[in-house]
């Protein structure tokens, strides 16, 4: 067709331009379709260079017809200009796309030869694991930080005075037997609970209000079996302020339990006794294992005991210098082991201290 078009163009006179324009357009269309077909069928970059030359080389077809265009008078140019321009652009674009496609095919072919097995393990070591007791402790600290409690810590080795007397447990008080104590000397003990932090912090804060802390840490009691460890962890909570009530304690405990175990859990408070709180309550959470139908985990009661709590005893406030007529407070203490065991379904407390890496790596 190129020949015919060339011939036509050569024969083209200004007065025949109009009548030949249609014919030219048809011929160009035919040529275009042919060119596009060739482009479509290209299978490598080398071949594309022929087409490039044929149309866009120095002696190429498009270069030639552009020259004719140059000879045309200005008023004639629009007549053929668009036809020729469209022809040029379409072939140009198609060729460019095709070449781009062929190029990337060629690169990818080369890259595929460098293929690796991406299912092999990654480099570098594995991630480590926090101890489950740390996970629970950090979770509970965060739960309380969110509602404005400050995390505080106390001494693991304490004076008898702070561990007992300041908590309304004088010498010879029967409650001392509830917690069998390790002694370093007559008046220095391994703290049996995190509660001495209550007295320490109140001393530090007095007379400011509120006193609003949670205090995690190690505690020690002379007990060692499948449910007791001579060292374990507690978190103490204390809020002392004006107008703090037992119902506030219940509200906070419900918030805590639902934050740890989920919104669907309920709590139950049972009257109990601690020398440093009154009224005191043992707190149970509804058993999530059986949905309170009763199972082995909850001894068929539907409830799991998780913490002790109560209103700060007026004597304890007094000893810290606060006036119990003006100020009230609540306190609670929970065993981190107990929570971890419930949360992760651990059935023997000793697993937590064996530190078997196969155990630790599950958390």
């Amino acid at each position, binding site marked *: 067709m190129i020949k015919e078009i060339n011939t036509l163009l050569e024969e083209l006179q200004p007065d025949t331009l109009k009548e030949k324009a249609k014919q030219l357009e048809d011929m160009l269309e035919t040529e275009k379709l042919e060119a596009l077909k060739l482009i479509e069928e290209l299978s490598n970059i080398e071949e594309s260079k022929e087409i490039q030359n044929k149309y866009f080389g120095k002696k190429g077809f498009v270069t030639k017809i552009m020259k004719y265009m140059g000879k045309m008078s200005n008023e004639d140019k629009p007549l053929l200009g668009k036809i020729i321009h469209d022809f040029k652009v379409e072939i140009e674009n198609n060729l460019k796309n095709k070449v781009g496609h062929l190029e990337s095919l060629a690169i990818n072919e080369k890259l595929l030869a460098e293929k690796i097995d991406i299912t092999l393990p990654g480099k*570098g070591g594995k991630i480590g694991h926090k101890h489950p007791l740390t996970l629970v402790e950090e979770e509970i600290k965060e739960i309380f930080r969110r509602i404005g409690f400050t995390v505080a810590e106390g001494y693991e080795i304490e004076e008898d005075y702070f561990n007992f007397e300041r908590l309304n447990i004088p010498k010879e008080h029967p409650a001392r037997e509830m917690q069998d104590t390790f002694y370093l000397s007559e008046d220095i003990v391994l703290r049996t609970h995190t509660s001495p932090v209550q007295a320490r912090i109140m001393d530090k804060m007095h007379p400011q209000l509120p006193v609003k802390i949670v205090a995690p840490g190690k505690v020690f009691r002379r007990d060692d079996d499948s449910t007791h460890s001579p060292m374990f962890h507690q978190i103490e909570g204390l809020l002392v302020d004006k107008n703090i009530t037992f119902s506030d304690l219940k509200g906070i405990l419900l918030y805590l339990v639902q934050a740890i175990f989920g919104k669907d859990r309920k709590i139950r408070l049972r009257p109990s006794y601690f020398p440093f709180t009154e009224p005191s309550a043992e707190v149970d959470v509804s058993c999530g294992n059986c949905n309170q139908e009763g199972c082995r985990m909850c001894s068929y009661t539907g409830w799991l005991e998780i913490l002790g709590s109560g209103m700060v005893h007026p004597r304890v406030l007094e000893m810290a210098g606060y006036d119990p007529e003006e100020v009230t407070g609540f306190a609670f203490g929970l065993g981190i082991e107990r929570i971890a065991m419930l949360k992760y379904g651990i059935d023997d407390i000793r697993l937590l201290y064996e530190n078997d890496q196969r155990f630790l790596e599950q958390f």
Partner: protein
Amino acid sequence: MKVSIKWLEQYFDQQLDSNTIEHDLTKLGLEVEDKINLGDKISKIVAGRIEALSKHPDADKLQICSINIGTKEHLQIVTGAQNVYIGMKVPVALVGSKVVGGDIGLSKLRGIESYGMLCSGAELGIENSLLSEKEKEGILPLAEDIELGQDIKEALALDDVIIELGLTPNRADCYGIYNVAKEVSLGQSLKLKKLDLVKSIIKDNTKDIEIIRTDLCPRYISRIVKNVNIKPSPVWFANLIRNVGIRPINNLVDITNYVMFELGHPMHAFDLDKLEGNKIIVDTGNKGEKFITLDGVERELTEDMLLIKDANKNIALAGVMGGANSEVDDNTSSILLEAASFNSACIRKTSRKLGLRSEASSRFERGLSADNCLLAMERACYLIELLEAGKVEESYQESYPVKQEIPTITCTAKYINGILGMNISQEEIIGVFKSLNFKVEVLAEEIKVTPEAHRIDIQSKIDLVEEVVRVYGYDRIPSTLPQGATNTLAEEYTISLKESIKNQMVAEGLSEIITYSFIDNKDYESIGMEYQGDDRLKIINPLSEKQSYMREKLLPGILDIASRNYKRQRKNIRIFELGNVYTGRDQGLPEENLNLGILITENKIKEVHGLELNDFYTLKGILERLLAKISDSSIAYLPGTERKAFHPGRSGQIEVKGDIIGEIGELHPQILDKYDIKEKTYYLELNLDKLAIKPVTIYSQIAKFPFVERDMAFVVPQEKSYGEMIELIKEASDNKVIGTRIFDIYEGQQIEDGYKSVAFSITYQDKDKTLTDDEVTKLHEIILNTLAQKIGAKLR
């Protein structure tokens, strides 16, 4: 504390349901630890009498019994027991019955058919400790007053339910079942029967009883019982005693035990004829004095132990145990009954010192109301007459020098509601106190309350709040959230520091372990630490030698865990612990220091991406990244540690601002050997207290001028360390070296013996201008000259 439902039912006009009681008591604050259906493993066992006995023709040890179970036909039962005799009443398990240990069917023993089985106590589910020697011999002999054919569960009260209460120290009064019954009546609004008593006339307050130590014995009551007739208690009475866990002995002992369980008040009976001088004296003893208690053991007394004496001798350890010299025996004809109140601390000390804990002492040491002495005495006297154990004298003797004060406490509904965050009306509050049998007097807003005498736990108005809310119901407390001012207490930096250290460790692939804070002294020796005498913190009363010293280092605990994991075929061990270590001080509390210990093993596990062994520098890298994160101080590493735990050539101390804060190195192979670790192991322990200062970051301007990087290779004597070279380079650099990187160390061929070749890349930059080539060359030369002068470096 065991409570029998049948026992409780005596105080009510109706039967009780154990589930309801469990629920109510829990709600009221008496914790139900266990609930036991006594006879749930047995059925179809009846009382029978052996009418005839004959030898089994084919078995020496078997006897054929003819048993009357109240029906016309007698049963033929073969037994292997030897304690059977004609006329003996026995439990008979019929064909189709259940005993503890199995089902009973028709059986043939050596050709003779046996229509059931005679039972031992154990087969009925009765604990061995509740049986007398005679009852333990074989088949359980039944008391005469049990009817033939009667169901054994009914006859022995094995259809009872026992509730085990875990009592808190404030409710020691509930060691008396009658006081538990008061709680039961509270829960179910049941009417409680009054106890039957023998009322008495007082005779003389002081003549026969002399209390010297009135501080230790506020009240002492005695009463004489004559014509004592000691015999077994009736079955119904013995059953109750047995069901709360006490072995029935005889009517007199059973009565004192019964009263102790009913009212929580222990009593004691002396053989009156063995007492001299018609006098009871309550006083402390003398140091070194010897006294033989009822159990036949000679006890050495101290001067703070309280004793009961007659005119001439000690007759009892007050509240703990009576003496052998005044013991009631088969020949006793008159007794002196004691109901007294003793100081709880004194009883506890005595019982602890002697290692002698009795049912009585465990009650006295919890604190008992003195007011109850008379009630206990009058109740015991009633039972003595009921059980025909003797003739009670009409009068009693008493000394009551220190009256128990029962407080009258004033509170208001406003106060109570203020603590509870509730709105309980005054009427309801008064109702609660009345239901508790407390005396109430109302003056407008004020409620004046006098508790019952046995409730010695009620001392102040907060105790009243507790009573109100426990009776009103904890489940009726609403849930609210506290309102109030903002918390001003700032969190200590250490707390978040610990969290970020743990995060960093985990990112390094280390797993956290938690070990006990107490260790074995041997652990120190096995890690090569010298024993330092007595200054190590020792627990006075450890659970075992293995847990007797407070740790001064984390290493023993961590090494122990590493060893355990290694023994479990774990090869790649990467663990850390963050926790306190303790050292003693001359005065006050010991010091608690926060330490971090990290242990990694060499890790010889082959992996697809190639094997890179962990070494000293792996561990040091972990430390460097940690310190870069938590500290802005510069760290120095001083070769060598004093500790024998480390490889002497591959370890060192870590120094920050002139303080040694830790050690790092390869553990000594001999130490590892002791722990059965057969791989090179690296360990560091760091004290974090000096690092617990929050680094302050201030931005410094990024340099505007280009830097120049130049390599430098030289030979130095082998023993010169990288640390020294870096120091010298810095010194000579006129602040224009902003970075150094060592990229090669070489010893061997082409290098003179005793020397090593090192190659550095040094980065030069001036913060004020662009360095020219000449300037850099000059600096480079200065550095090299310094190295040459100071450590004999030679350019390669």
